[in-house]
């Protein structure tokens, strides 16, 4: 689903190109967003919207956490893309002190989350890196937005 990196892989015709693709893949996990002049790519923008559709009811506005779920601006500082996918897909439970059961549900069957999971990751990673601030990020113009073009072509 990571169209941006998949497109790169698709171009890989030689061994060296594939090596480059793997490097790109790893780079994407480290920096899954594009920001130019304070404007974000479509994936990061859509991630903002989809995050605030589903995740924010526990993890708070702008991923800042709530009185009962952690701030993802902190979690995504250390959490890998693989671990992120694992937790969103399968959920997790933690038994805390003072009846503080902490429960993250599985979103595996939620298409509003799973179809856009890389977008949500991009947004949260950008928040954790302090690359985007609070509130609605401004979008790159569609014609200048590589991610948007690829997304549109895939629909």
């Amino acid at each position, binding site marked *: 689903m990571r169209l941006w990196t998949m497109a790169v892989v698709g171009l890989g015709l030689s061994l060296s190109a594939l090596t480059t693709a793997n490097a790109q893949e790893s780079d994407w996990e480290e920096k899954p967003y594009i920001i130019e002049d304070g404007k974000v790519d479509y994936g990061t923008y859509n991630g*903002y*919207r989809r995050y*605030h*559709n*589903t995740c*924010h*009811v*526990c993890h*708070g*506005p*702008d991923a*800042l*956490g*709530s*009185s*009962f779920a952690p*701030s993802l601006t902190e979690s995504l500082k250390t959490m890998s893309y693989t671990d992120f996918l694992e937790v969103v897909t399968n*959920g997790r*439970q933690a038994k805390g002190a*003072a*009846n*503080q*059961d*902490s*429960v*993250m*549900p599985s*979103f595996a*069957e*939620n*298409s*509003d*989350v799973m179809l856009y999971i890389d977008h949500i990751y991009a947004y949260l990673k950008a928040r954790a890196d302090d690359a985007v601030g*609070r*509130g*609605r990020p401004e979008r790159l113009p569609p014609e200048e937005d590589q991610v948007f073009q690829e997304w549109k072509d895939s629909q």
Partner: protein
Amino acid sequence: MHGFKLLAASSLVAVIGLAPSHGFANDELVEMQKNPKNWVMPLGNYAGTRYSELDQINKDNVGDLQVAWTFSTGVLRGHEGGPLVIDGVMYVHAPFPNTVFALDLNENGRMIWKYEPKQDPNVIPVMCCDTVNRGVAYADGTIFLHQADTTVVALDAKTGEVKWSVENGDPSKGETGTAAPLVAGDKVLIGNSGGEFGVQGHLTAYNIADGSIAWRAYSTGPDDMTLLEPENTTHLGEPVGADSGTATWEGDQWKLGGGTTWGWTTYDPELNLVYYGSGNPGTWNPVQRPGDNRWSMTIFARDLDTGVAKWVYQMTPHDEWDFDGVNEMILVDQEIDGEMRKTLVHPDRNGFAYTLDRETGELLVAKKYDPTVNWATEVDMETGRPQVVADYSTGQQGEDVNTQGICPAALGTKDQQPSTYSPKTGLFYIPTNHVCMDYEPFQVSYTAGQPYVGATLSMYPAPDSHGGLGNFIAWDATKGEIVWSKPEPFSVWSGALATAGDVVFYGTLEGYLKAVDPETGDELFKFKTPSGIIGNVNTYEHDGKQYVAILSGIGGWAGIGLAAGLTESTAGLGAVGAYESLANYTNLGGQLTVFALPSS
């Protein structure tokens, strides 16, 4: 398939329910609610006034209030609602896991019994806005608890032993329980939660003797589910017609229609009518559900014995802002245009406070109770429809468009935190939010048990105002006018209390319990409790002494939106002053604080 089973069951019991029932518990509670020494139901009395005749603590001495004793619930989630007091015993409830304590007031709160249900923790993440619970109900020697997992349990008030237990819904589909039960007659009334999960709302009456269903009335669906009678049930005086609960929906969308009933229910014993409101319709994306979406966002007046609706009034047809209609319905008799009327007063999430004739459903007054409300210019008194402003219509602006500067925010000008009414001043005292929002709807798909929201919101303090997020106001419901308004730095998310001692109490999100002058709003007393207050203040008398009690414990919707701090206003909107995070003022908690005057 489950829905069809429920349908068959509910229509059957509706027929059985037609037989007149005589509730001895009704008579008992009708008398008990008049005794100001007790606090027998969450809103203090059937009329929902949260007013007490006690006057030992008064305007002149309230400044001397001291903490008498405290109690920890052992839970650190949002604490809504408040305790009951019945003949020397206090019944305190907690958020999930929904512990209930019976405390002996003769021994400074020694625990007589404690009940802690075992619930599947998977219910926690399907509760939209923290694992709150708004309190227990009492009748006939029994405490009724409505658990997060929708279990309704009857506990022996003396021992805490379970008398019976029933399931009101299916948490795996997002159906949960947060609303306080109300006992009226021989029935206990239970509303459901899950409006953000596509749950179909209903109010269910269980027989208090054994937990069997007397009737279940859905907010949407065909007439045998909604218990609306096409010719007899009226909307502003006109019969609603056949299948009005499906006619304004496309296809089967009414099944995901929301209209949950998680707010407060009140009761008029003389008219034998119960009053409550329904919440948002299905997804928050209005483009996905064309039509008026009846009967979401609606006030219902239903016959207690049969559940049949006498009248309904839809405040926000085709909601585009998440303005649930579940807030309290306060039943008082007031003089309007020179005539005494049996009125119902309802300050709605949508920013209009409504005064209706509670016998007929006639609309008498509908006015903004925060001057910043801008999504509609007024309510047309003939049609009852709000006159929506196109600039703030998230449906007209369309999907994938960020409609900006809508006031109030989805939190509403107020949420469920119940108001109070003082017959001495004739005024309502209303805890309010002063928050505006940007709202972008987009397409979502429904998956059972998963959030079904479909909009992105950002909220900020009302622009060009005092910079705070709340006000505590005095409201004249006969004229529809604000008498005074006391600014607060944060939303006032606590239920208020008025007393014959000429004092009005409320709590704040920083954790203050405050007392103000009912005439002026001047502050007479404040004390900072250990955590933010989203609970409701009450009062009682024990051994000749008046006490005031409040639960602290920040959380709830306020804990989601405000604990992290709201987005600072965007430059174009020009809010005054920067917003400072609530997290700098308070921390998680779960404590009851009881106040009294010092012994002389």
